[in-house]
């Protein structure tokens, strides 16, 4: 450090020194960093349990310096339910992609939200199956080309993209639902605030909290990280609007 300067930002201590395997520009790593910053700020490193899915983020336990349980494909919500019921005072979150949460694990997600299980979902929605070779996901946009929809997604055959944040916001026992993105510095700051709010609501035992992240996949969208930000702005955000869908009512003083 040069003399006369103060440190105002450094890599959070809750991230390990392991180099992340994600492609350059992937929002998985951005969200890992933002979540671990929140855990560090709330001083909950010893009291946080994460549940990791199958997908690109399957090795998240290598990067987050907290307790992490690996779940079977799509069953992170069920595993998190069990952990939270045994350890009601710990901070528990499930970290899932769209293939895990919205495709194979839809039943677990819907029923965990319907029961109002008191943990946080972090849902990384990049609209494609990134790890397995860029196949069409339930959240792939209409007309978007993937390896299993080479002429673009056709709603007449496979329906419209699934809006998970809107769906789970209808359940009575879900406390907080917000969709965020990391495509600009301002949105990334909002994403961090949303994660912090969700963790605080969880510690107040208000019910399920659900954060959907409109994410990118430069490798499987076949573009550069910069172009993926433009795609998010021009195509993803008009269909998946950002914002708070449900929030607990503030108690009047």
């Amino acid at each position, binding site marked *: 450090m040069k003399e006369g300067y103060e440190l*105002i*930002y450094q890599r*959070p201590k809750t991230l390990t020194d392991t180099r*992340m395997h994600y*492609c*350059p*520009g992937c929002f998985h790593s*951005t969200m890992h960093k933002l979540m671990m910053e929140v855990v560090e700020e709330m001083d909950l490193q010893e009291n946080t349990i994460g549940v990791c899915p199958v997908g690109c983020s399957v090795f998240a336990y290598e990067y987050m310096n907290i307790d992490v349980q690996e779940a079977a494909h799509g069953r992170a919500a069920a595993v998190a339910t069990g952990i939270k019921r045994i350890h009601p005072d710990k901070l528990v979150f499930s970290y899932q992609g769209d293939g895990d949460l919205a495709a194979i694990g839809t039943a677990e997600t819907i029923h965990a939200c319907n029961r109002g299980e008191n943990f946080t979902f972090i849902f990384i929605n990049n609209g494609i199956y990134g790890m397995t070779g860029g196949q069409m996901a339930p959240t792939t946009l209409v007309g978007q080309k993937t390896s299993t929809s080479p002429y673009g997604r056709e709603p007449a055959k496979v329906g419209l993209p699934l809006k998970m944040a809107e769906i789970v916001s209808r359940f009575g026992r879900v406390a907080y639902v917000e969709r965020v993105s*990391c495509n600009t*510095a301002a949105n990334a700051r909002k994403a961090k605030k949303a994660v912090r709010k969700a963790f605080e609501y969880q510690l107040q035992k208000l019910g399920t909290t659900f954060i959907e992240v409109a994410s990118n996949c430069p490798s499987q969208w076949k573009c550069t990280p910069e172009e993926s930000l433009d795609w998010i702005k021009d195509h993803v955000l008009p269909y998946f609007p950002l914002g708070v869908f449900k929030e607990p009512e503030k108690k009047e003083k």
Partner: protein
Amino acid sequence: MPQKGYVEISIEGCKGCNLCVISCPTDCLVLNTSDTNSFGLHYATLADEDKCIACLNCAVVCPDAAITVYRKIKSA
């Protein structure tokens, strides 16, 4: 000496995704396209430290948490 602050970018931690460069409001970061790190990737560097205002934008968007930010201590 930098005017308001400066950043340090870990060469081995950077993957050259360019997100910090396009998020910088004062254009003081550049992607070094003439050199690579041990992974064979270009890395971002602070080209003009006088322009840096320590706004944290690059550190917030950096996916690999490779950026450390310092701010000048205001003299009382």
